[in-house]
């Protein structure tokens, strides 16, 4: 077993013994969908079968939260002294960063496997290609969100409290002002103007397009793909560069 897999498994194992966090996330999804989702889908009449739309939105929101958690986790590790330990191990840096990224991806997969499966069942009539593309888009979005958190980590090295406050506020704005739960065309104009700046708008609409939702309700897929690519590449790139500089200047303990 290579050191990359060993590193990934060492951390992942503790999430699974026992898998409380994962079960709670699945439970939250189940409750949210079966109670709130079912109720609101009866109230929303402008769109046929709103439950499907809502279900995808909730998976997107979970992706954002998990990606965000992964990024924050990394910053916490740097503060706790775990990162210096990992950096001192006889593993090349690229393998270490790859292992951390893969661990985030594996957590994302574990947490989303049930919600996404339920969503796909609700939507029905899907192809292997569309499901694979949707999963790939979710991972892309997850990496992008992790990158945002990493790029913001320079704040955490000055003040963990300010970092937490900024990340919480930013997360709220990014989720609320997006098309996660409502299509752009149905949003009030001021709300819609803000939603075009949220990366979740593009992630959510691209996944919906792939899963067969009506394209007229969604943002242009080419723009969505471009935004997501730019987000993942730029934030992860900036995040890694900033982090390397910061880690080199941070004392342990």
């Amino acid at each position, binding site marked *: 077993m290579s050191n990359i897999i060993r590193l990934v498994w060492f951390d992942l194992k503790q999430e699974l013994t026992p898998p409380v966090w994962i079960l709670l996330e699945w439970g939250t999804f189940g409750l949210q969908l079966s109670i709130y989702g079912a109720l609101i889908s009866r109230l929303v009449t402008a769109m046929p079968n709103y439950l499907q739309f809502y279900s995808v939105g909730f998976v997107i929101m979970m992706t954002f939260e998990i990606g965000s958690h992964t990024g924050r986790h990394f910053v916490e590790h740097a503060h706790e*002294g775990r990162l*210096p330990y990992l950096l*001192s191990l006889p593993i090349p840096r690229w393998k270490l960063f790859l292992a951390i990224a893969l661990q985030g991806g594996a957590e994302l997969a574990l947490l989303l496997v049930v919600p996404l499966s339920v969503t796909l069942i609700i939507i029905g009539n899907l192809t292997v290609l569309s499901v694979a593309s949707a999963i790939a888009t979710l991972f892309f979005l997850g990496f992008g969100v992790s990158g945002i958190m990493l790029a913001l980590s320079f704040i955490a090295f000055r003040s963990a409290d300010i970092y937490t406050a900024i990340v919480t506020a930013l997360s709220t704005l990014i989720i609320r002002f997006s098309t996660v739960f409502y299509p752009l065309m149905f949003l009030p104009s001021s709300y819609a103007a803000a939603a075009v700046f949220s990366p979740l708008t593009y992630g959510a609409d691209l996944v919906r397009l792939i899963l067969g939702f009506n394209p007229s309700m969604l943002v242009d897929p080419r723009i969505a793909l471009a935004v997501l690519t730019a987000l993942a590449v730029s934030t992860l790139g900036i995040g890694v560069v900033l982090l390397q500089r910061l880690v080199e200047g941070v004392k342990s303990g």
Partner: protein
Amino acid sequence: MVAVETRNLTKLYGKTKALKELDFTINEGEIMVLLGPNGSGKTTLLLILATVLKPTSGIAKVMDFDVVKQPTQVRQILGIAFQEARGFWRHKPTEILRFHATVCGVPKDKREALIEQVMKDLELWDSRGKLFMHLSGGQAKRLEVAKLLVQRPRLAIFDEPSSQVDLRGKRIIWDHIRKLRDEGSTVLVATNEVREAEYLADRITILDQGLSVVCDTVKHLKDSIAGGDVVELEVEASSQDDIVKELSKLEGTFRVTALDESHIRAYVSMAEAWVPKMTTLCYQRNSRVLSVRVTEPSLDDVFLHFTGRVLGVATS
């Protein structure tokens, strides 16, 4: 052979200079102790050698590998026990050691036996089923040390290895660090505890405000303090006056004081050389020496001598 060498090593944190053009060497197979107060640059130096931090300027080499240019090779031959053992809250000690041993290349057939032996040696075996977050501070610290005892790297770095550990535990840790040296590892220990430094060191480097103030063996450092050894004599009362004058003239005498009619205190350099001269003199003068007590200077005194500050005050 030189195991570690730094030349003009400088590390800046913003405008703060943690290390100031540090020149420093460790010989292969010795225990080098870095003694200095908090903020003297000890941990920064260790982290640079462990390739966790990059130096701002200067050169640092471990077994001839440059820490900036060949970091992976450096990490393959060294191990570091950090000042604070943290981070794997929901893992058990055996899992943490197994992971560390595997990543560091301890052969599979020896791994489990070695882990069990080290855990028993450091009195961690009974806690093997606990989660890390449920260990006491002392147990967590011993676990941090255990990583290196399992790994047995060519260069073992310990950052305050016995802080938070009780007196018995300290002695156990120190003995194992010495054993590690005896089995061929080069050891670097950073501490601000003089007892730890005195017990472990083959050589000591005193670090103060990012600078290496002095580096030598404990004995040479103590001997270098003029008048640092204190010899207290009890002589027959009748012969004291002459003896005080004669003792003052002996080579290595710094100052001689009569405490009362039979007790004399002499401040000397290198008491082991001075005492035979003193006994010869007393014998020639027909003065009977009833008792001799020699007190060496402590490393606190050495630190004070070389830095002008008291170690305890500097640390706090």
